[in-house]
């Protein structure tokens, strides 16, 4: 859910959008925002599955410290999505375990 209006911060004036692809599904993101924020806004909180038990994890710290939000981004695994800005056409994949390098 986006916070479009805020009593202190005012109206969200960011207008430029980019298209990202998440597990094959296209969705819109605000230019420059972190991947994790874009996913939250699109209702996606499950970002990766753990290696041993296959449990889902999502954002915890939001500032790049805990690494729970790691995903495969443009073929590179273990990208901290809470501090990596979205880019037009970015390919984002839910990471399983330690992930794998998709780049051949």
């Amino acid at each position: 859910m986006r916070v479009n209006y805020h009593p202190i911060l005012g109206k969200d004036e960011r207008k430029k959008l980019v298209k990202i692809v998440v597990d094959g599904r296209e969705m819109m993101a605000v230019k420059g925002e972190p991947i994790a924020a874009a996913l939250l806004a699109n209702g996606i909180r499950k970002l990766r599955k753990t290696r041993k038990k296959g449990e889902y994890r999502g954002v915890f710290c939001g500032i790049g410290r805990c690494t729970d939000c790691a995903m495969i981004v443009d073929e590179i695994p273990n990208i901290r999505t809470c501090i990596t800005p979205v880019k037009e056409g970015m390919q984002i994949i839910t990471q399983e375990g330690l992930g794998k390098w998709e780049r051949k």
Partner: protein
Amino acid sequence: MGEEIIKKSQVVVIGAGPAGLCAAIEARKAGATVLVLDENDRPGGQLFKQIHKFFGSGKHWAGLRGFRIGENLLKEAGQLGVKILLNAEVYGIFDDMTVGYIRNGVEKAIKGERIIIATGGIENALPFPGGTLPGVMGAGGVQTMVNIHRVLPGKKILMVGSGNVGVIVSYQLMQAGAEVVGIVEAAGRVRAYEVHLNKIKRAGVPIYTSHVVKEAIGKDEVEGAIIARVDDNLNIIEGSEKHLDVDCLCIAVGLNPQIELPYIAGCKFSYIPERGGYIPVFDENMETSVKGIYVAGDVAGIEEASIAMEEGRLAGIACAGSLGLYDKETEEKLKKEVKKILRAMRTKHDSRIIHSLTGIPSNDRFEKGPVAVIECKEEIPCNPCESACVFGAIKVGEPITNPPVLFEEKCTGCGRCIPKCPGMAIFLIHKNYTDKTSLIKFPYEYLPVPEKGGLVSCVNRNGEIISRGRIIDIKASKKDDGTKIIAMEIPKEYFNDVRGIQIRGDGI
């Protein structure tokens, strides 16, 4: 580092948060060359997600919102010529005072005659079943998502932890339009400042003291939570479980210092639980056991941002002094000023100390006309109300932890103090507004803003609806920075009870 020529700066600051920026500003003021390294793509650390007004001394930006303080610091640093290098991730500090960092995938290094480490803190996690489900987030993480990136992590939120962070983030979640279903606190009483707590209570948020989260429920992500009462030994009392319909748990159970760099640099450590665990030992100049390496802010022990800024200033002045940029006398004078503020800010806060109600007018005064009611009775290092009153009707004095005293005969009922109180604890009450009604003016920072002339549900200090009121006026002045002053007519019998309006449901 290969054959690359290593660059030099007299002072290298690691971290562009409140402590690092203040340290850099002070060192630069003395004439030092200063470079600040920060791993993020924007400076300011965690200041830009702090959208509430800060406590502190009116002389030092108290009463300003955190992000405004951040803007001011960046402006000052820029004017002074402090260099800030962003996207620079520091990975180590070597014996020869060289700082290694990676920027855009390239390894680089800079040598400092003095190094100030201001890397801040990391949020604590809390172990409980379901505690790793997506939807369980740190309170700071939630604050980042909501106040900087403008997305809510859930609609119905359970806050875990009732310290200042938990209570302030709860308030901010409601400002962004989420519902805070409750605040859970394992201790028998709330730990936050009372004025922060009161904002939450007026909004009707239930506070579950002596409660813990037993479990976060949900298959793949949070779909609910079970809380339970605990006994004095923190054991769950069977049968006290309560299911809460929530989609997000927000964990506000403290932070710990981010100490990797001082550790790598060989600094000595000490274990201080009240300050977040292992912290580097430092002296009265913020210098660690390694000569030339200083610490400031949360890395030197978890405290408030306002304290981090003063520690940064102290470290910056001390560095400049040790580099010979100040004569001994000037250095000591400057450090003395900062230490005085630090002492005042650190005066032990004890919410069990209830002072006499020095901010509350007498019954006689209420009869005579509009008057300020200052519901602030704790020892808080804060005094913007004092300078807000041009009539000298509010006195805090020294130390600034004194609760404000109202000189009721001097109060004209102008209401200028209302938006200046960071605790939103000042109300203006005109008991005899008409024969049957009173007028109350109170600060308001939610959406939607009620309509002038409209009828609203009025709440008491606990958020219970006790009467109806009519909105007479709404003041939104630019200098109040988002705080609106609402004037509301209420039945006279409730003049001492009504303290706000219902913000949830169909009250407005």
